[in-house]
């Protein structure tokens, strides 16, 4: 991919314009995080080409995009599976048996943390606290929260998403 191959659709460009309009004149850099999210929703991950393209849209230097995209853990800087499972590994979820359920999830998918299943359907990542501690153990797949996880519930979710 080169920069030229990344072009947002008309709808997406409209959306970017709307986002830039939220901030005072000359502060379009504030649009960076929302636009990175937008790109990731569209492409699944954020490639260097996408970052360069976003830099041109916001009239900032590419490095300004790289340094931000690498700081925030939500942005996937490498290709990921269709379903990215982001599993909470922090205290309260672990207290509720989160570590056992996590082991079960990895066994079921036969992959390790950070890997993608060979069919490209699932990627598993460990994340820190998702602000759902009373409903743990929990994980997120893209924007959806899955809470009160048990081994059985994990099986159901994975089976559903494997269809």
């Amino acid at each position: 991919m080169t920069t030229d191959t990344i072009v947002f659709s008309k709808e997406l460009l409209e959306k970017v314009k709307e986002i830039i309009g939220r901030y005072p004149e000359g502060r379009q850099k504030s649009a960076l995080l929302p636009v990175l999210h937008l790109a990731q929703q569209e492409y699944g991950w954020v490639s260097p080409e996408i970052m360069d393209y976003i830099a041109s849209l916001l009239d900032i230097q590419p490095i300004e995009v790289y340094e931000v995209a690498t700081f925030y853990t939500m942005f996937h800087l490498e290709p990921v599976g269709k379903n990215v499972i982001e599993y909470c590994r922090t205290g309260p979820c672990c207290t509720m048996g989160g570590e056992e359920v996590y082991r079960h999830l990895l066994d079921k998918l036969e992959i390790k943390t950070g890997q993608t299943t060979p069919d490209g359907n699932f990627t598993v990542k460990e994340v820190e606290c998702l602000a759902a501690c009373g409903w743990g153990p929990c994980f997120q797949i893209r924007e959806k929260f899955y809470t009160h996880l048990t081994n059985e519930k994990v099986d159901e979710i994975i089976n559903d998403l494997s269809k």
Partner: protein
Amino acid sequence: MAESIKILTDKIGIEGIENFDVYRKNGGYKAVEKAIKKMSPDEVLDEVKKSGVRGRGGAGFPMGMKWGFLAKPEGVPRYLVCNADESEPGTFKDHYLMKSNPHLLIEGMIISSFTLGANTSFIYVRGELMYVIYILEKAIAEAKKAGFLGKNILGSGYDLQLVVQPGGGAYICGEETALLESLEGKRGNPRNKPPFPAVKGLYQCPTVVNNVESISTTPWIVLNGGESYSKIGLGRSTGTKLISASGHINNPGVYEIELGLPVEEFIYSDDYLGGIRPGHELKAVVAGGSSVPILPAALILKTADGNSRLMSYESLSEGGFQSGTMLGSGGFIAMDETTCIVRNTWNFARFYHHESCGQCSPCREGTGWMDKVLYRIEHGLGNERDIDLLVDVAKRIEGNTICPLGDAAAWPVASAIRHFRDEFEWHIKYPNEAIKYQAVYKGDMIKV
């Protein structure tokens, strides 16, 4: 039981309350009308000051006082930023409040912005809560359509634009100056203070940053008066507080409590947590989110002087760090006797290591050391000097960094060792036992 007062959660549970019409029918936006039509910004500020409400994001700084510090130079815009980054382990109250009753926060934002004279205000929501962002954006669109947002609100000549900004998955962006950096489209590196945000904040303009829960108290305060608010609660802990309860309890969830409630009642009453799960007993509590010192059961129920411990800023911190803790953000994590304190401490240390922004050496390096040394103890590889090493590293981080993330990383480690030192020693003395699956020190150093 006496009917407990609900200021923030009274409307939660009403069918369809997330819709403007339902919220309005149930008394919503009356406070905005009152503030904008019948009061001046200074009059609202006065009520907030009188209420004594303290910041609910963790530090507990009086909100009215903070608002009073806002610089007002001619011709320079002022900003209000709502901190909805909520990433402190154990805390999920803002998440709950925003998804259950989004219009309450919008209403609070309008009142607070009007009071501070801000014409553009931001709600910075952690990026993982994208679905909550959609809920808030819908609520904002509805409020705008009804004339409560946008140009010339209720014919008053006051304009307000509300923007919801997503974060990107970084705990540090909950620290207010890191949040402002992030909102400017940069890495979340905290700024040196002074200048404080009240003088130079977002885009170098005067800015107030407040937590979701803090801002959400303003509609009630406007409707009922600051004095009525100050009569709720106990002493300088006025009002109610949302407590996020998790761990080995019968009823996890978010509770609105009147400050001053005895901890024992909170844990064991069926009106609240309903006690520890059947067949188990309380071992330890982290009362205010992962950053505050952990306390053993005896010290969370009673202070070292034998007084009943209360859910208030003052009572929880009674005894200082020797025997007390802090209310913090109200993330209440209860652990029963099956919990390994060493493992839990390592888990939190790993969190802070992962979340340190890396700007200050004591935090960047120190959190890494604590993570590694605790990992080694937990995994049967510890040596005798490790406990003192941990205490030493924690001391060297504390107070030596730009922002308090360093302190927040040091306190859980230091307090776990202070109160559960024998558990660490057991791990080091009996590594083969300690590494067994779910091994927990049972209080007997010899027989294992």
